[in-house]
């Protein structure tokens, strides 16, 4: 099938998005501002890593079935997470950005969860049964993530002068990465035609309505259409062109498997 490689790339994109943001969120575990919110963000991390596992397992099956690898060198969810280099990762740039302060972490989560919400909502009806099943499951979890992060955007934006100033700084840091969420990578286009992936341009208006709604309650001004253009500097994550931040994540996440291959604990 002509779109088989595209399907592998797209499945990896879904997996990498969930893994990388899940890993970022896990950096807060034990460091949250209050215990309940530390637990909340750790739970969101757990959901995301769980979703990533299902997508990686599926991608591994697709790769092994396609016979791309040498016989005996079976690809697994672990090898996909721990043994690929930066340019093989297809996550959006937003997911890999540093945690910064609580405001930046919250805003990153909100932008990401809103995009994931509409994406999974559509993917539940994907013609690829496996992607549809994972999305159906994950969608229910993202409802919680979106609600939690929306509430925090409002709480901080409409909070004190300090929390508001921090939200505005976070917005300045992160808005430039939002355009990429709606720019399809080359491998997504044939999948849209097959009814496997979702047309991203159809998600953008819904995402914008959601962000406007929450920003208006939070008293934050909406910056206008999401920034970033196809082939631009801030829109290459899905095709493996990342910011330097991804390298630091991989260095930490992959160190053990690279230094001690196959190590289990």
């Amino acid at each position: 099938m002509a779109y088989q490689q595209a399907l592998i790339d797209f499945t990896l994109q879904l997996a990498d998005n969930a893994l990388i943001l899940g890993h970022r969120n896990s950096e807060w575990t034990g460091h949250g501002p209050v215990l309940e919110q530390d637990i909340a963000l750790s739970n969101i991390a757990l959901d995301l890593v769980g979703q990533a596992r299902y997508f990686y397992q599926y991608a591994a099956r697709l790769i092994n079935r396609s016979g791309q690898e040498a016989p005996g060198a079976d690809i697994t969810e672990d090898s996909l997470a721990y043994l690929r280099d930066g340019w093989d990762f297809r996550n959006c740039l937003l997911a890999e950005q540093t945690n910064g302060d609580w405001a930046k972490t919250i805003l990153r989560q909100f932008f990401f969860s809103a995009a994931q919400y509409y994406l999974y909502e559509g993917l539940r009806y994907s013609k690829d049964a496996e992607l549809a099943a994972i999305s159906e499951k994950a969608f229910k979890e993202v409802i919680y993530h979106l609600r939690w992060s929306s509430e925090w955007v409002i709480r901080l934006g409409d909070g004190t002068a300090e929390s508001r100033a921090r939200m505005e700084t976070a917005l300045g840091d992160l808005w430039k990465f939002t355009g990429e969420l709606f720019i399809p990578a080359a491998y997504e286009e044939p999948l849209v035609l097959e009814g496997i992936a979702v047309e991203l341009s159809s998600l953008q208006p819904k995402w914008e309505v959601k962000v406007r709604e929450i920003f208006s309650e939070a008293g934050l001004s909406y910056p206008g259409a999401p920034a970033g253009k196809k082939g631009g500097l801030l829109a290459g994550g899905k095709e493996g062109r990342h910011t330097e931040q991804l390298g630091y994540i991989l260095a930490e996440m992959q160190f053990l498997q690279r230094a001690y291959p196959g190590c289990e604990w």
Partner: protein
Amino acid sequence: MVDYEKIWSLLEEVNDPEVPVLSILDLGIVRDVKVEEGKVVVVITPTYSGCPAMDVIRMQIKMTLLQQGYESVDIRSILSPAWTTDWMSEKGKDKLRAFGIAAPTPVQQVCHPGLFSREEGIPCPRCQSHHTSLISQFGSTACKALYRCEDCKEPFDYFKCH
């Protein structure tokens, strides 16, 4: 001749490691038990994608059946249709309450889009008061939220609707 009733009764003995008062049947995560070419196949579904209990549950099902003399056991996962708390048995809900965890309400309220809204009528498992409030949507495990009773002042876990 395979004794399905026996297999199901053995599965009743496998508990959720995170909420040990519930069996996996109470939880509603066993989808199917069948036999294929002499192999016992148990089909389960996760509660949440990242639930760390799933690996332990998978192993425990296998151990339980192997110990009872079933020689070949295969545990499969299925994601769709996605698990909901509607599949929890009434017996399971009673066990939860007795254990001090508020049981999921029969009305699905999780998808309520309203921000800062509270699920209503979550009774305190200790004093039965409905005068309770949400502390956090996320609790000690993925499947629970954290509540507080405004009458007896005790915090408690709520097995949230999903």
